[in-house]
């Protein structure tokens, strides 16, 4: 029971002298690990040659079957974040980060077994289901803690953590390639061993995060910080219960805002390499296209910190207005950049688009906090993540389907993406209006003082160590 009580919220209350700047690295320990999900594709090709080794044998898995691993993981990311959001909120960040580490690591170990036994269903279960739950729990676990530690700069704080999710692939991708090269032999592809090593390393890393994370003591506030006495138009100082929040039109408008912003970005991110080569045949080589994808990932990561921090200054609603207005113009410019043959303009458009794609993820927790208060922001964020799952399925399908439809109807490959870009611009226009319609939540949804006290007592009861 000793270990279990160590995980309780009571044991994570910061002692005097604790610096709040310890919390972002704790959050990064988790987000840098689960960000590996963006680098899963490095295993695709090796996993199609597990039997044939140098080339795919008939018994080897097809690329289309392997594509389901990521889709299942993203689905379970959204589902687990929604279902366990309240559990994460009430149990505190340490318990959630510890559990996320277990799920994420177990996902790799079960997948390693799947590779070893050549059973694809084990990989669906491991990386897809278990890993997906680790993704969901890990993604939301530090969010509300960071918001509570940084009431003066919530955007910057959550931006830092969510930037880690974007940066996780930078570590995972070269590390996985290096490990596979180490474990490969002329008769064996080293995927299973790489999964085992990653599972163990990620477990250790995430548990370090769980060990160093703390929640602020009740009533704590940063030195010199005075909460605004007069409530601002779109920033409430009241709390709204998670299941009331998801009944409000504001929640669903923000859901669409996130979904549309992500749909526009995620489809392009998946097709960036092929798109750049097809739009500029002979001018962008496969090697240069790989560099282009790397550049997009870098701006995806940097945008998370930049835009979320900017939102602390200009406000969340205005930040999303920037995403939708600038994004629309840039998506319209892309076909023009192709028609005049300007690689520089094409690259510039997409790096800015990718920064705003990442920025959309990183700014949304602070947007939720502004609209629904701090108490249940983690759980509400969990529900909102379903928008990402939805976009993760529809974005790539939309881009691939429209491209194929264009090519089937005789459109040259270089122009096959023009319609897609215009549709993406259209989606962003819809997003702009969804954001425009967001107003302050009606006072009838606010928790009364009595309800706040009851909720605090419930949390205290949940987080009491067993037998205490």
């Amino acid at each position: 029971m000793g270990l279990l009580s160590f995980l309780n919220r009571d044991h994570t209350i910061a002692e005097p002298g604790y610096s709040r700047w310890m919390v972002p690295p704790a959050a990064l320990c988790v987000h840098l690990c689960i960000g590996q999900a963006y680098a899963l594709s490095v295993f695709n090709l090796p996993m199609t040659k597990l039997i044939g080794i140098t080339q795919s044998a008939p018994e080897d898995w097809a690329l289309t079957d392997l594509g389901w691993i990521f889709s299942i993981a993203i689905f379970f990311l959204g589902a687990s974040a929604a279902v366990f959001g309240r559990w994460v909120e009430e149990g505190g960040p340490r318990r959630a980060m510890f559990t996320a580490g277990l799920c994420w690591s177990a996902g790799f170990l079960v997948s390693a077994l799947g590779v070893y036994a050549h059973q694809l269903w084990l990989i669906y279960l491991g990386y897809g289901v278990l890993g997906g739950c680790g993704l969901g729990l890990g993604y939301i676990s530090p969010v509300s803690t960071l918001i509570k530690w940084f009431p003066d700069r919530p955007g910057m704080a959550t931006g830092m953590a969510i930037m880690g999710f974007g940066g996780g692939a930078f570590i995972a991708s070269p590390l996985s390639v290096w490990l596979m090269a180490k474990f490969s032999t002329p008769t064996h592809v080293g995927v299973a061993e790489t999964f085992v090593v990653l599972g163990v390393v990620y477990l250790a890393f995430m548990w370090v995060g769980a060990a160093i994370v703390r929640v602020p003591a009740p009533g704590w506030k940063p030195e010199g910080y005075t909460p605004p006495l007069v409530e601002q138009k779109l920033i409430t100082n009241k709390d709204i219960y998670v299941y009331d929040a998801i009944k409000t039109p504001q929640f669903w408008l923000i859901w669409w805002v996130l979904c549309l912003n992500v749909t526009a970005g995620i489809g392009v991110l998946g097709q960036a390499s092929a798109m750049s080569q097809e739009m500029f045949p002979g001018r962008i080589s496969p090697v240069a296209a790989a560099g282009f994808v790397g550049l997009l990932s870098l701006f995806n990561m940097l945008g998370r910190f930049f835009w979320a921090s900017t939102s602390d200054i200009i406000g969340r609603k205005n930040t999303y207005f920037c995403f939708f207005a600038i994004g629309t113009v840039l998506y319209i410019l892309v076909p023009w950049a192709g028609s005049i043959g300007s690689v520089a303009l094409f690259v510039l458009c997409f790096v800015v688009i990718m920064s705003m794609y990442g920025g959309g993820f990183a700014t949304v927790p602070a947007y939720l906090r502004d609209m629904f208060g701090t108490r249940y922001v983690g759980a509400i964020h969990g529900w909102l993540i379903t928008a990402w799952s939805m976009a993760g399925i529809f974005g790539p399908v939309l881009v691939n389907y429209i491209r194929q439809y264009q090519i089937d109807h005789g459109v040259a490959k270089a122009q096959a993406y023009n319609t897609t870009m215009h549709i993406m611009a259209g989606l962003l226009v819809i997003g702009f209006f969804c954001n425009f319609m967001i107003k302050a939540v009606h006072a009838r949804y606010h928790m009364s003082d009595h309800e706040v006290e009851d909720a605090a007592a419930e949390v205290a009861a949940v987080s009491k160590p067993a037998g205490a």
Partner: protein
Amino acid sequence: MATANQQSTMKLKLILAWGFVGIPLAWGVIQTLANAMRLFQ
């Protein structure tokens, strides 16, 4: 009030914690930048 000893311990913890996440991240960013440079070659 935190003592001077507590403050210096916390500073050390901060350096260790940020180094623990910052060093791998910086390594990953450098690798990615090196790849991204191929676009401009």
